[in-house]
């Protein structure tokens, strides 16, 4: 790669000429080959799960997924039909969806309010408080499992969607506040001052100025939080028994891994299909959110 670029950039005098372009492309061939090989390598595991999930039940115990590439008769959608008829899996998908939606909307509302206060309201100890929020970014979830387990049992919300939503909301807040505050603070001061002079209340400023302008940040955050909750295993495994999201439902099948691969593979693929759709649809926001707060 190094020499290729050097050759392409060095001796060629007129970069616009066709020869130069050809030289540049040919010179970069090793880079293209490397990228293609690495890209394939990165794709293989996910693709392998997809094919495994499509292999006919009779052969999935004995055939490697790559055999389906040369023997398409091995493929079937029967496994997916079975999974979608499996009550435990379908109800788990709905449970996951409700938890993810609730635990996305709630923290965004709460964090937007707090983010606005940290960005644009004056009150004593503001910076210290915000530092405290930043500190909470790294608190391991493990610190909260035991006390909240007892608390939920006392409150009677153990093994409920509500309990999971509230837990995810709380642990999503530090990142959400951090992200929204840094976005809100970038909104031009004049805009807010002008609204204040016009006699707009803080709530009105928040709803009419900050939120509309902060929409891109809210979108990034929503995607992050949704994926984070959808993909969670630890919290659901601790606070759910009957209320099982999809990760836990599959996890409980892992004990017999191998014997039930025709159930695990399609269920696992379904569980990651939704995050993938969200990711591909909103990739731009996802990357922005990632860059904005790369420490969680």
């Amino acid at each position, binding site marked *: *790669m190094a020499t290729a*670029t050097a050759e392409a*950039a060095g001796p060629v005098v007129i970069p616009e000429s066709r020869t130069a372009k050809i030289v540049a492309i040919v010179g970069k061939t090793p880079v293209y080959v*490397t*990228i293609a090989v690495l890209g394939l390598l*990165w*794709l293989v*595991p*996910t693709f*392998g*799960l997809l094919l495994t999930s499509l292999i006919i039940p009779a052969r999935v115990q*004995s*055939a*490697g*997924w790559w055999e389906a590439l040369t023997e398409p008769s091995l493929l079937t959608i029967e496994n997916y039909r079975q999974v979608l008829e499996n009550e435990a899996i379908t109800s788990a998908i709905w449970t996951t969806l409700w938890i993810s939606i609730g635990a996305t909307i709630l923290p965004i*509302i*709460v*964090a937007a*309010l*707090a983010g606005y*206060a940290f960005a644009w*309201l004056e*009150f*004593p100890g503001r910076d210290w*408080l915000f*530092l*405290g*929020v930043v*500190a*909470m*970014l*790294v*608190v*391991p979830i*493990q*610190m909260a*499992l*035991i*006390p909240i387990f007892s608390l939920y049992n006392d409150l009677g919300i153990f093994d409920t969607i509500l309990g999971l939503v509230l837990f995810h909301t*709380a642990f999503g*807040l530090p990142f959400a506040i951090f992200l929204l505050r840094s976005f809100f603070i970038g909104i031009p001061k004049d805009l807010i001052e002008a609204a204040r002079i016009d006699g707009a209340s*803080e709530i009105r400023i928040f709803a009419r100025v900050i939120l509309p302008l902060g929409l891109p940040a809210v979108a990034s955050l929503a995607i992050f939080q949704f994926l984070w909750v959808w*993909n969670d*295993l630890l919290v659901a*495994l601790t606070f759910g028994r009957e209320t099982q999201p999809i*990760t836990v439902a*599959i*996890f409980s099948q*892992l004990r017999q*891994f*191998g014997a039930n691969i025709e159930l695990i593979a399609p269920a*696992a693929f379904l569980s990651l299909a939704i*995050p*993938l759709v969200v990711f591909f649809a909103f990739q731009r926001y996802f*990357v922005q959110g*990632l*860059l904005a707060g*790369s*420490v*969680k």
Partner: protein
Amino acid sequence: MAQASTDAVATAEPLRGAPPESQGGRWGSYAMAAAFLGPAAVFLLVWVVYPIVHTTYRSFFDRSGNEFVGLENYQTLFSDDTLLTAIKNNALWVAFVPAFVTAIGLVFAVLTERVRFSVAFKTVVFMPMAISLFAAGVIWRVMYEKDPDRGAVNAGIAIVKDAVDPPGVLSTARPSTEVLTGTPQGGLELTTPVGSGDVSLLGLTGIPASDVPDDAVDAVVPEALAGGITGVVWRDFRPGGGEAGVVEEGELGLPRVVVELRGEAGAALAETRTEPDGTFAFEDVEPGEYRVAIGPETFASPFDGVSWLGPKLITPAIMIAYIWVWAGFAMVVIAAGLSAIPRDLLEAARTDGANEWQVFRRITVPLLAPVLTVVFITMIIYVLKVFDIVISIAPGSVQDNANVIALAMWRTSFGGVNDFGLGSAIAVFLFLLVIPVLAVNIRRFRREV
């Protein structure tokens, strides 16, 4: 720990009002701030701050929670074998994974800079970030199946290994009569010496029908060859029995078996492979006594797969899967940093005669240092808390070997042992480990503000 909790406890302060010296109008604005912060404060106090205090307190009590045991739980943490394995494994995770992820991310970012199709590549590499670590674990568990016919990783190794060191045709065969002696490791040798013009019959048995190569045809006894030695290697068995040591109709020849012609001293002088009907021939043999033997290669066992999910390799195996997930994160963050580097600087260095490696080493990497640090620190935090991917890849029987602190905490508290005292101590230990990283973050953050 103390620092975090005091900071956090302070969150409640503005809710109760403002300092006394504030002017009348300010009370209203403080109340406004309290209203905006209230919901967040409730969540953080109940779900984060209170648990930090409670878990710390609980870690000094026994399993039942009634008896104060001082530091006993912490002593257990550093003396119990399973927990020590968890700590040791976590140390390995911190030592290897952040460095690998950062390095791979840097290479990918530099590789894809100003290259066409890089968007497609970046999307592919970044994709695992969107899926759960748990699903990634399931994906890799399929990859790591031990049987090379089912696990893609071992299938890949098998292709390389078979090219370098091909497996034998017949790994289970043994002699059909006593005229053949020896062991599979040394090859099977005819007891009677042969000379030119002789025909040797090498009968094998114990070969499952599925192991007989597809191109095998009925065995024939070759004709004697003047000045040469001929023979046949065949499956001395047919349904219904047959006579041992005699080539009969319906018995199959064994193709591609390595046959050695050995001298008096036992050293192989010549080597050949059998035809589909099992026959072989050594031509132009000097007069004298020889031995005919089936070479040991024939009996070499095929590659039966690396045990990735076994106790020895489980931790590196999980690390590879984890790096597969996180390389995309590092790549994207570093690529963003890379695009912010002024082009002029690089061009100036090139004009001055620096080669690409020098530009990379002396200019790109130093300018990227802050970004690389962010990625590295982020990875340390995540790696300290690694849980999902370990519990999903490691089968139950090797979870003791794959153990990490976060997994040990969960297994101790909820996975059957149900010791909240020890579980709390493990959680506190994990928290203490992330505090130095937290301190670095806060310092960085305050510099920015």
